[in-house]
């Protein structure tokens, strides 16, 4: 696996062409048949269109590390979901080569009724890894998450920090071609954050592509070599993190001063 990934270094692994994501925001929540038909007959079925992403063009090569920068609701998570194929583009196309381990919106997808141990195996299978592989890696995952005593506890009793630890441990142990880290680190304690950054760096050295979202500047500057600034669903700027932050800070600063007046 590893050699293959290194071989592909520099090749295009994510190509997004003119992609848009559109949501229909219904005037009210319509999820029952009666109301639907009543409105249909009355011709009151109206949806407000809302573009979460508009005409995005982005090419990412294997081994690169990208930061997504933007305020809340700018479309960062939506873009990540588009890349993971959780969302389909309304228009345009998204091509992805290689396996993806996504951690979107604070953690991986867990079934809260199941224990941590069961979730590790399901999560591994979701990421396309065999049960044999997961059995071999199980100890390592638990060690990394430092949750030895909590493996038989249902996930619903986990704190958000513990969930993030577990999700991160699984997602990085499977050695994906593309790693997506969306604010996961924010809920971990300082020591664990440091450990995670070291682990991400380790994966980067081995040729994994990184897509990173964080609202704190430090980790972004430490880990990423490229940055995209998203604003209201559109790409405002592409460059190095330093360049992008310079402009971004300028804009957010002016916004704050305007409010102060």
């Amino acid at each position, binding site marked *: 696996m590893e050699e293959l990934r290194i071989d592909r270094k520099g090749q295009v692994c994510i190509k997004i062409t003119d992609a848009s994501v559109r*949501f*229909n925001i219904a005037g009210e929540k319509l*999820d*029952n*048949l*009666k109301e*639907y038909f009543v409105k249909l007959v009355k011709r009151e079925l109206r949806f407000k269109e809302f573009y979460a992403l508009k005409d995005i063009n982005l090419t990412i090569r294997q081994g690169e590390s990208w930061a997504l920068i933007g305020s809340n609701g700018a479309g960062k998570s939506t873009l990540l*979901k588009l890349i*993971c*194929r*959780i*969302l*389909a583009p309304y228009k345009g196309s998204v091509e992805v080569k290689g396996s*993806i381990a*996504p*951690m*979107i*919106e604070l*953690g*991986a*997808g*867990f*079934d*809260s*009724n*199941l224990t941590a141990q*069961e979730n590790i*195996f*399901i*999560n591994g*299978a*979701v*990421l*396309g890894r*065999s*049960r044999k592989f997961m059995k071999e890696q199980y100890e390592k995952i638990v060690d990394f998450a430092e949750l030895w005593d909590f493996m038989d506890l249902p996930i619903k009793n986990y704190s958000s920090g513990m969930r993030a630890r577990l999700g991160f441990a699984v997602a990085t142990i499977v050695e994906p071609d593309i790693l997506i880290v969306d604010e996961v680190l924010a809920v971990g304690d300082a020591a664990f954050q440091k450990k995670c950054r070291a682990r991400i760096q380790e994966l980067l050295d081995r040729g994994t592509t990184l897509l990173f979202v964080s609202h704190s500047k430090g980790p972004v500057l430490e880990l990423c070599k490229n940055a995209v600034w998203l604003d209201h669903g559109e790409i405002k700027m592409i460059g190095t993190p330093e360049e992008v932050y310079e402009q971004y800070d300028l804009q957010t600063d002016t916004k704050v001063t305007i409010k102060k007046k």
Partner: protein
Amino acid sequence: MKKFLRLTKERIRKFGQYWDLLVLLVQRDLKLKYRRSFLGYLWSVLNPLLTMIVMSIVFTEMFKRKIENFPVYLICGNILFSFMRESTTQAMTSVVGSASLLKKSYVPKYIFTLSKITSSMVNLVLSFGALLIVMIFSGVRFQWMNLLGFIPVLELYVFCVGLGLFLAAVTVFFRDVRNIWSVVTLAWMYLTPIFYSLESHTYADGTMKPIGLLIRRFNPMYMYVQQFRYFIMQWYVPEIEVPVMTLMWRGGLVAVLMLFVGLATFNATKNKFILYI
């Protein structure tokens, strides 16, 4: 045609990739079903057995016309129908109920529906234990032909996968389908000869009432239940029942059609699921 073949091949490859996940999900369903219950999996045998006992006491008292080997007749119909009801009801919420996973990672969504139908299927296989017990106590002769009972069971499985996919897709957009479905299956149960035989739908002169004709011709559950009974206990009344070979191909055809409808509905809407769950 070539494109279709290539696409099918690709889909089968992908299915193989997620086989482990399917196995894990089926295990999960079974584990959660009997969690914190003392007798656990034994309930899969006990439940149909106890239902059969209650129903056979009630209905032998109520019905004048006696059905030979009524307990076996009853349990054959009951376990198959229960499978259909349980599996489709579970499958209906399979997509909606997996929101936490689907929102955060990419998985082919039909895996969740398939896992629900399959875990119910495991349950059905366990309840064959109850069928075996009833057969022994009723003195039904065991024959090689009994093994052919897997044919209607397989047809029913395919039928339920199709129906489950259809219901799962519709439920994403209209949650109240859940409430309608419990009423639909109730009506469906009374329209299937489970505790009565088609003979109860005949006039005094032996000709069939319209309702009986409709059931015989169009109720898929009749096709599967009656086939199953034929193989298990050779239940066949030439004047009123449809020959087993006819039922076999009709049942197969209906199953494949249902699967097609389910797949088509699911495929056409699956990209929109994420916006509604």
